[in-house]
């Protein structure tokens, strides 16, 4: 009797331990699946030109070499291809202002839609939201035609970074408004009412009550916009046809599509293009998650 009573928990425990080994094995196997491309990216980038060989792509490098990165970044005049440095900076000049503008705009929209509801605001919101899901192909032709006709400060929008900023800010309205609306919906109305009793108006309520509370909302929105604008290809390739104004995704695609560029240089270029958003993910992953969840409309 007593031995059996001792036996049973022990046997279940071993079974559970055995199950947990399998469990961790599966989790680790998947982790390897997700990390394989990273391994190849990093290892390939670190190999010297003498070592780089497509048929030995899984081998470890003999030492630290940054030849591939240098070539992907600066290009090669001898071989006749451009480096990604210009494209990288273009992406910075595009992403930073577009992210800030669309976050500000989304914050104002969210403020009005939650704290200044008007007749029809319940209809307006889903109408705004729809723009998030459309395939941009369905607005691409008119967008190009329109940007070709508009200039700001003498800069034609079509073919320029300002043109891309305009496109990203406008088509960013749905997601930025959605995130801020959900965020501000959780700010208690009593807080607003108390400020109004103290004589605050529509501007000062925003400035002194809501805006100071908005930092987490701004972080989520800005990470989301930064990532999606940095990673965008469709607008970039359609609106900018001149290599001097093309963002990094288009630059990388050109680099990878060229037969004269070695594959290790392409891999190094891919890592350069991925690095900014990867760093954001590594250091601000928590906020990145929140944006993702808002993106799935479950915020």
């Amino acid at each position, binding site marked *: 009797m007593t031995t059996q009573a001792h036996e049973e928990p022990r046997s279940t425990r071993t079974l559970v331990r055995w199950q947990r080994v399998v469990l961790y094995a599966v989790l680790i196997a998947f982790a390897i699946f997700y990390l394989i491309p990273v391994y*190849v990216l990093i290892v390939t980038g670190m190999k010297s030109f003498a070592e780089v060989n497509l048929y030995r792509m899984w081998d470890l490098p003999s030492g630290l070499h940054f030849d591939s990165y240098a070539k992907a970044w600066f290009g090669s005049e001898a071989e006749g291809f451009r480096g990604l440095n210009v494209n990288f900076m273009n992406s910075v000049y595009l992403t930073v202002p577009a992210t800030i503008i669309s976050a500000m705009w989304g914050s104002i929209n969210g403020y009005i839609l939650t704290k200044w509801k008007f007749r029809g605001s319940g209809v307006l919101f889903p109408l705004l939201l729809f723009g998030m899901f459309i395939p941009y192909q369905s607005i691409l032709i008119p967008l190009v035609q329109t940007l070709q006709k508009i200039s700001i400060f003498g800069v034609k929008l079509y073919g320029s970074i300002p043109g891309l900023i305009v496109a990203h800010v406008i088509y960013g309205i749905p997601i930025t408004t959605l995130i801020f609306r959900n965020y501000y919906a959780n700010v208690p109305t009593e807080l607003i009412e108390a400020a109004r009793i103290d004589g605050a108006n529509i501007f000062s309520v925003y400035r002194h009550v809501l805006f100071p509370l908005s930092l987490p909302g701004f972080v989520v929105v800005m990470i989301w916009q930064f990532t999606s604008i940095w990673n965008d290809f469709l607008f970039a390739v359609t609106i900018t046809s001149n290599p001097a104004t093309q963002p990094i995704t288009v630059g990388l695609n050109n680099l990878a599509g060229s037969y004269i560029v070695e594959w290790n240089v392409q891999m190094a270029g891919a890592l350069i293009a991925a690095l900014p*958003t990867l760093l954001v993910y590594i250091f601000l992953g928590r906020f990145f998650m929140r944006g993702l969840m808002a993106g799935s409309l479950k915020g």
Partner: protein
Amino acid sequence: MRRLNWERVVSILLISPAAIATAIFVYGFIGWTAYASLTKWDKLFPDFTLVGLSNYRKLFANQRFQIDLRNTVVFTVLFLISCLLIGFLLAFLLDQRIKGEGIFRSIYLFPMSISFIVTGVVWRWLLNPGSPEMGSTGVNLLFDMVGLGFLKTGWYTDPKIGIMAVAIAATWQMSGYTMAMYLAGLRAIPDELREAARVDGASELQIVRHILLPLLRPVTLSAVIVLGHISLKIYDLIVAMTGPGIGFSTDVPAYFMWDTTFRGNHFSRGAAIAIILLLMVAVLVVPYLVHSIRAEAEL
């Protein structure tokens, strides 16, 4: 009372830029594209002579477009099933009080922060089959190294399974996101429910089937909507990884649209493809959008 009035006006003024921009750049542009799809516009210079639905008729008779539609269906099914299965499996395993859960989660999710162009470039080299003369490369080489040589295939160079290779890369990128959605859903299910079922003698598999999956149905629906609309719009990944492929084996409507519009200047045909894409996405998204707005209004 008077103060309330000017603030009302200001609030409308503050939201109207977003409303007007959306009215023009989303709805107006969609209308413009729809109109263009009914015209004879077949070269760089616009020709708005109406031709009815003939662009659509020609399109559905076009062999490339038929292949594209079939590719989209195959891709969507493969991509959805693999993302949902992997996503649920990983979420379920991670929910078993795993040591280092945060690390696993970060590894599974990081591809989400990278652009499809980077993913495409990297996977194009990973799934490069190599050649019979020179030997295997990439994943095929890896198969050789671990004794799984029989799994070697031509990947995207094989017209029969080319689109599957693209789906593998897309799954690599998006399955972690599905995992995150399911994990959030699982965490929302109270532990008591599972405990009660265990006390009643239910096996883990029965708990998954009869308790977890039914309760996670809203998550599955959200995931299907999000992944489905990504898959219908997929463009960047195709550009960077394969292009249209041999015999259009990896071509999709979004690629055809860009190609025929901005390379071939067949604007009305491109517009027609764009409208078909929009309708496909709308069928998926609009009921969901209406449903979630209603559900929110009831709260």
